[in-house]
């Protein structure tokens, strides 16, 4: 399997993207492959990586084409710098088209380096816990910690199987351990030796994610992603594009096959 890096031809940001991509690929056990749409000279100064260069074409379409190959596990993409509004047309198109997880790196984010701690925000609903399942599958390992962050908002997703922090706490000496155990059982089921930790906080979800990612020195934030930015959708993901202190891995969320009738 490989991690496909969509190189823009902007030397500095490509170098940064490539470094994070290699770090993530090492953690996931994948190869790294590059794809550039443009002139080969655009990427001349980059470290050695097997890169396919396509001189002409629409970038998003070419990346999507290459990503559709069976061997591609993750696609890595650089984001524009913060001062510019939005995330750019290529990123926006790929976000909505790709069926693979997408690593997004913006200049200024903390580099992944050797992946030791991931932050996975979970609202406590099954369909948004795809990120956790992916994180467990791909990265759970000895010496690595996956921190599940639940931001308590006092609301309860209507989806069956959801388990937000309890809105009633009879005796806290029992309720919190019970909830934490059940939350962990429900959303983290990897037994490969990686450390799991559940952190529950109250507050604004984005601000809390950003703060916890920073305070915990997380090297990667993994989020579930429904594949659409239409209208006002995905406000948390949009905000994290700009505010996350470390690279983001967006995992396409797929509803589980269950329940069945």
């Amino acid at each position, binding site marked *: 399997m490989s991690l496909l890096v969509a190189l823009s031809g902007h030397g500095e940001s490509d170098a940064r993207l490539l470094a994070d991509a290699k770090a993530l690929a090492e953690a996931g056990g994948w190869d790294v492959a590059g794809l550039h749409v443009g002139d080969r000279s655009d990427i001349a100064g980059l470290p050695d990586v097997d890169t396919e260069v396509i001189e002409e074409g629409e970038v998003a379409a070419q990346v999507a084409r290459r990503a559709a190959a069976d061997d591609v596990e993750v696609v890595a993409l650089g984001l524009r710098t913060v001062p510019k509004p939005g995330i750019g047309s290529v990123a926006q198109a790929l976000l909505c088209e790709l069926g693979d997880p997408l690593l997004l790196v913006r200049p200024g984010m903390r580099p992944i380096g050797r992946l030791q701690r991931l932050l996975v925000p979970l609202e*406590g609903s*099954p369909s948004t816990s795809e990120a956790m399942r992916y994180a467990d599958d791909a990265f759970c390992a000895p010496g690595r910690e996956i921190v599940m962050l639940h931001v*308590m908002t*006092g*609301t*309860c997703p209507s989806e*069956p*199987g*959801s*388990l*937000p*922090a*309890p*809105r*009633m*706490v*009879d*005796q*806290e*000496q*029992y*309720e*919190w*351990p*019970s*909830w*934490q*155990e*059940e*939350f962990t*059982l*429900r959303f983290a*089921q990897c037994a490969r030796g990686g450390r799991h930790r559940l*952190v*529950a*906080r*109250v507050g604004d979800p984005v601000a809390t994610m950003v703060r916890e990612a920073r305070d915990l020195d997380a090297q990667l934030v993994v989020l579930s992603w429904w594949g659409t930015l239409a209208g006002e959708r995905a406000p948390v993901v949009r905000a994290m594009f700009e505010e996350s202190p470390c690279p983001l891995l967006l995992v396409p969320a797929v509803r*589980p096959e*269950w*329940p*069945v*009738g």
Partner: protein
Amino acid sequence: MTVRAQRNLPDELDREFAVVCFTWPGATADEPMLRALRSAVERLTALGVDVAIVGRAGVREVDEALGARPGAEGRLFLLLRRGAELYVVGPRGPRLLERRHLTAAEQTDLDAAAGLVAERLRGRGLEATPVPGPETRVSVELASGGEGRVGAGARPRGLRDVVADAGFDSVRRAVDTVLDDLAEGGFPGIHVYAEGMAVELGVTDRADSMRAVARLLVAGRDRDIADLLVVGDVFAPVHGVDGPDRKLLLPELEGARFVSVGEERGGPPPRVLHLGGGWATLLDVLEDQVARRELVARARFPEPTGDPAWRYEVKGFDPFREREIETLLTVANGETGTRGSLEEGSAVSTPATLVAGVFGDDTAEPRIRKPVPAPDWLGLRLKIGSTPLTLANGEIVSHHRVLDLRSGVVYRYWRQRETGGRTISVRTARFASLDDRAVMALRAEAVPEDFSGRIVWEGAVGVTHAGGPVLETTFEPGEGPGFVVSTQGHKGGGHVLAVSTRPAAGSPVERTVDQARDVIGGRLEAGEPATVDRLAAIVSARTRLPSREKAVRTLERAGQLGFEELLARHEAAWAARWRDSDLVVEGDAAAQEALRFSIHHLISTAHPDKETVSVGARGLSGMSYFMHVFWDTEVFVLPFFIYTHPQTARTLLTYRYRLLDGAREKARGLGHRGALFPWESADRGAETTPPYGIGPGAEVVPILSGLMEHHISADVAWAVWEYWKATADDAFMDEMGVELLLETARFWASRAVLGDDGRHHINEVVGPDEYHEDVDDNAYTNVLARWNIRTAIVALRWLERRSLTRATELRARLRVTPRELESWRQVADGLADGFDPATGLYEQFKGFYALDDVPLERLRPRPMAADLMLTREVTLRSKVIKQADVVMLCWLLSDDIPDEVARANYKYYEPLTTHGSSLSPGIHAAVAAEFGDLAAAEAAFRMACDIDLGDTMGNAARGLHMATMGGIWQAAVMGIAGIRRRDEALVVDPNLLPSWRRLSVPLWFRGARAHFDLEQAGGGRVRVGIAVEHAPVTVLFGGVERRLAPGAHRWVRDGAAWEEET
């Protein structure tokens, strides 16, 4: 249903026989034959057929070869040693029923006869020696003499060769001669048999065996002789000697069907149907008898009720919710609870069997009493060939579970297309018997839909190894099929589980024992069911490991009854309980489901007789709260039992009475007198609240409830009074109630301190609103304490009137002096209660009014864990309430607190309440309904219903919320139906929710059974039908007292006016 013979047998056998008797094949049967024979015998006995095996061998030989273990004793009999011994075979093996012993005279005769026979045979040139034979026989051994033939095909000389040397042309001739000799010698009653190289003499023979069959299984079980089928080997003479089975043909068995499967060279005797074919034909005959019954038995798989109002259904399989579903589908009976886990388990399953009242010391911090987990009996895995069938193996075609609320049985229907493409359908039914509370049962059936192959069920037991409160777990095979598993607690009690799995009647599968598993299976054709019954018995003890034998005996008793009889008794027990507790709602299916679901689990969770156990916060459905007992039981749960099953209520109060010494010790330890019940109670009455907990941010949180939440003592006192007033159980009051009231009153008198203001205060407490800890003069605590003291004095006066001797004895024992009583009165009269007559409000605690106001919109949506969402610092200094506190006080003391005061406090406190506790919404629903605020009542009622059924607390996976369920019942009966106790009468003042067209409520009240039928009659009118039984009941209609005699009564309320309908 009539089923034709499945095999090619003659018409004479084209019927069912109730008793099947056959002769033991002995060494002529090989291992496959014996295995098939065992299978047929076990299945026949499971189908209710009596099987008798007749032989000359000993019991060890027969039992080791056959190894049959019927599910219950009483169907399989071994008649051995030529009629000298009779055994019955049960799950633990053969048990001797009768053995023929020789009298001294018989022994003398036998010895003399043997001497005579030996002498006569020696006279004919044979070397004959009398030797003692087995049991009732004596042998005359004959030396073989000579070497016989040698070389290829040589065989040793037999009896025939030996007697030929003496001039007999057959053994028969020799035996006849011996018989003549005996008759001549004066021993006509002695039987003679040729056996090996001996002539045996005895006082019994196979005819005696057949007489026993006729006596025990035909006449003794009121059957016709034609119901008896006897299959033998050879009846006709061979070489002049009667066939060995000739003696079976007793004259008195005329009409029975005799069948011969051996060679009958001279033709069979009259009355004998000759089939031939050897022992294989015997198997055909037995299998035919099985087949005739199988299809009928298969049709008897139990089914849940079809009435949706009695079904709680879970469709599909959602791994995220599975632990929650396991909780909701718990089957329990007050003694044991078995979570509703998949029998075969899954990666997301947390199966458990919980037993009430058995605790051990935890070996980890904090070292508190924790339940000793019982061995889990439920495990039952299915294999197709050697491949385990699970939900993860292939594709789930359908999956559906039903809790039949009426009968307390969980049904499961599952179709799976496994990875190999084969489809199999599975159904199971399980229950924890309400009739015999030590017993649990499961029937499971697997049917290959589109293939034939080997299907195997494997029983398994889940055990908890040493650690935590568990000291040791041991696992051993049972004497019969199945296993015995013991779990011993650390400084506490223990459990013994006996469990076995057997082929169900009519299923073409057989049992083998494979180490730690009961393994039952067979090769099935498509459409054939592999059905097994798994029965389990758990016995427990609080302070030791209980008797293993008791568990085994209990299981045997259950096995004797069988799954279907156990189920019938269980269902009858449930029917009796529902008769007195079912609430019928018309017009609101969701409410109906929630009410029946709650009532079902309330009944399931409390034991009506066992005084050493109570109802834990999460009942018997999960380990959260460690099965500790809180005020939940007395204040929320108990009213349901008081009014539907007073015996259970009495038992729950007796639990507290038995632990009074622990409560006294706790009070003493804090420097007080009297009885302070532990906030969390286990088996010894000591405080078991952990001193600290871990908060959501992994911070250590000190837990103050064990130190400061003292209202529990008044709650117990309130429950005593409520029980007595509602049941008129004077004996309880005499034996236990008054003492409980006095000791709790004494605690309050010693707990209160006289302040500088001249009033008495109870400081440093936690009230029901646990957002505000360490407060002074909590109104709930103080007013209930005052009530407790005054009520104790009233109760003592009552006891003095009832029995001065008893009252004097009690006062002497408790050392309650007049002076102390006077001091109690002074405390009660002087207790600060925060009541303001001008507003009618109680201040929740001293200083509450001075707390910050919180914009109400910050307290929405409800429910809300406000200490979390607003932070603990904010809730501590704010007018934010976790749960009903003053409102709860007014609800409990409705006899004393005027309605207008209760209403004012509800209006003030309700908006401040976040319902951050599962105890809150049910009571709020009741109070709102009482005050006619039906919208608020409905909202709170549905909030309460959703706590378990909607898992809105996110913790249903760890157990049901018993207090919530009690609150739901109180809301429906006391709030919405408006039926409440007022002193020794019932007030009826319905507040039916708009959608509730009709509500029916059965109650027990002071020895009377009253069934209320409330109906919206249009125009705001409510019609009330009351059926009274057993005794008159006093009812208040609009404040007017009516004494209703047994019979039917009809009343109508129009506005505030009540009128009796004629």
